[in-house]
């Protein structure tokens, strides 16, 4: 569960945001050059929602939210940016199952999300504002990136109509989704995140194991799109006659 300090004054949060950027010596509003983006080590991706600047931010951010470390690959290596891209391009991004009638008014935290944006609009607006106001996030050192993300989480700085903490929590939510959702959705590459924690995936039967206590369940995980040879099919192939 996320911890969030609702009592944090706006100014303090905002100050931290600028300190994080300042510490790196990066001038705000420095436009991101395409060459810099290409220097970043990232898997080749065909994005259908994100533009290059958005992709650069997302790839850098998810790599800090769930980093590659001794426990295994992180969100970037697991294909989470690809997952988020496909979600935002699809029905969920367009507001599927989201009640979208006004009047729009801010509510108490207990009343939940009350912004007029679809998820696609929310991400687009917030990342555009971030890239305009605080360009260069992707070029910061990891520690500085963490400080920047921490400030995003704690402040309510306006990012194109989206409070930064709302954007941060949305980003964290989809990052964890992409890390652990079935690989058919484009993240959880090679089911490595499942292997790291020991979750076996889409099996249908543990009847023989449930009362054998304290066993180490070591069978490799299975995806819902997996064939008998372990290949994961994203595309349905026509049946041969």
């Amino acid at each position, binding site marked *: 569960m996320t911890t969030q300090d609702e009592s944090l004054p706006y100014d303090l949060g905002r100050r931290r945001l600028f300190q994080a950027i300042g510490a790196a010596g990066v001038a705000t509003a420095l436009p991101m050059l395409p060459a810099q983006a290409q220097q970043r080590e990232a898997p080749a991706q065909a994005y259908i929602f994100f533009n290059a600047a958005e992709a650069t931010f997302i790839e850098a951010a998810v790599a800090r939210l769930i980093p590659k470390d001794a426990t295994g690959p992180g969100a970037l290596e697991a294909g989470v940016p690809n997952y988020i891209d496909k979600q935002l391009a699809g029905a969920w991004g367009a507001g*599927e199952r989201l*009640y979208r009638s006004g009047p729009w008014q801010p509510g108490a935290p207990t009343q939940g999300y009350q912004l007029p944006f679809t998820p696609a609009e929310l991400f687009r607006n917030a990342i555009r504002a971030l890239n305009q106001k605080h360009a260069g996030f992707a070029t910061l050192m990891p520690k500085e990136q963490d400080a920047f993300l921490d400030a995003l989480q704690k402040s309510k700085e306006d990012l194109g109509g989206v409070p930064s903490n709302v954007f941060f929590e949305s980003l964290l939510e989809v990052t964890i989704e992409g890390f652990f959702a079935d690989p058919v959705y484009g993240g959880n590459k090679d089911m490595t995140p499942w292997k790291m924690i020991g979750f076996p995936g889409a099996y249908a039967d*543990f009847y023989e194991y*449930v009362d054998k206590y304290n066993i180490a369940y070591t069978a490799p995980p299975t995806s819902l799109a997996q064939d008998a040879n372990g290949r994961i099919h994203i595309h349905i192939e026509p049946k041969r006659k």
Partner: protein
Amino acid sequence: MATRLKETDVVMLGVGLVGSIVGRELTKAGLEVVGLERGEPRFTVPDFQAPAMHDELRYSIRKSLMMDAAKETYTFRNSANQTALPMRRIQGFLPGTGLGGSAVHWNGQTYRFHDADFRMRTLANERYGKDFLGPEYTFQDWGVSYADLEPYYDRFEYLLGVSGKAGNVQGKKIPGGNVLEEPRSREYPTRPMKEPYGSAMFRKAAEGLGYHPFTQPSSNLSEPYTNPEGMTLNTCMFCGYCERYGCEHFAKASPQTVVLPVLLKDPKFTLRTGCQVQRINLDSSGRNATGVTYIDSQGREFEQPARLVVVGLFALNNVRMLLLSKIGAPYDPATGKGVVGRNYSYQTTSGVNVFYDENTNINPFMRSGASGTLIADFVSDNFDHAKLGFLGGGYIGEVMSHGRPIEFHPTPPGTPSWGSEWKKAVVRHYNHTAVVSTHGSSISTRYNYLDLDPTYKDAWGQPLMRMTFDFPDNDIKLSAFITERAAEIAKAMGGKQIVASPRKRPYTSTQYQSTHNTGGTIMGLDRSTSVLNRYCQSWDVPNVFVIGASCYPQNASYNPTGTVGALAYWAADAIINKYIRSPGPLLS
């Protein structure tokens, strides 16, 4: 203009658990029944099949089987001095939609309430004195006793094939079962479920502390079973995709697996899906329903005339249907007058995490929706409340139902919510954490209620229902007490660290707690404080019956579905054997 259809004996609103049971009983009695379901038709084959069903993102996170908030939701506020705002996503509780309703995606935890729940006001007055709690608490008697409902609980459990071990058959206590339960007329239809590892550790710890652990009664079956309708269910495979999912194995009792196929073959039953009922129509006297008006999935409006209207929607939607139809006086919290929307209650839950060392493999993914072990020592009035200052109770159990990792990745307090430390903690604790849950009652107050929202509308232009709710002091005290007892048991379970989280205010609509929303069309013996009489019949419009958890004057310790099933049989019996013989008010 609405197209007027041919009159039918009965129109049934909602074809879920209640609609399927009552539809079956009334057609068997010779009545013609039209069942109107807002959602889609769907069946175990092909709709609930693996591997597509084992998709956490689609079903748990995007909530594919639930009410579509884009069309219809509720507004919410914690107190009457706030402006209620729409729940723009369905998060805090999960009303189902579609054929079979919420009984498709439920966990199958199937209990009976206690006599002290049904006669709460009378028995609490006798045991603790008249003013034990303050005047703001509006809990009351149901108008039925446990003895009244026992035969109907029995029918429901044998329809479902519930797996369990009786602890009290006709007054005879049976070790190994729940010896603290009310007497049942016979043993459960099928033997108890296998016990997972964490539950076994809970059992040992609870026994050591002198409590009476027993296996959770389950409607995911322990063995094959053929019910009195001739429907055969299979053995639960502990796949870990139960609540929020349909069951591919025919192992979870749902309308589709226990009664619907039989009902749908009956020529006296007509199912219409994709039908959004707008209102129950009344004649000019306002005392007699003439049928319903609905809009089908193509946007066409129909009037379905009927001699009898049975409302079996999700609890909250039962309340909304009466408010939209102007049946019964809406409740006004300022004066305490009016009844529809009164006594909205919920469920007071909490949890205790037990973090183990890395050599203890809990394997949380090997679970069923109802495959745990619990104690009833603090259920209902099984313990003395005199010095505790609250009423009600709850069960404590290791009743984990899954280990799906988007939803379940516990970390100890102090762990950051992201980054390398978070990731290390998730990897370290995922397979080495057991959760002890408490599941407590919810008392009714004059401040918690339901009415129509003045501002927000659904996709058909009708007002959304407005929920005003926060946890009463009584239930916060209850949760503190029972979570402390749970932590004591958890400490004896051999973990390295115990983290207890008793329920705190404010209630938040974004955090899933349970789908046990109750009250609003409550049953009782006094028409000034209830919407329905003891047969679930409207006091105001006698040819309208309303069945569901909306009938509960307050919510009890156990999960509510067993009692919904019992009330469905109870009310169907009253319709067939009392109302049809002599249509009119069954009580005056």
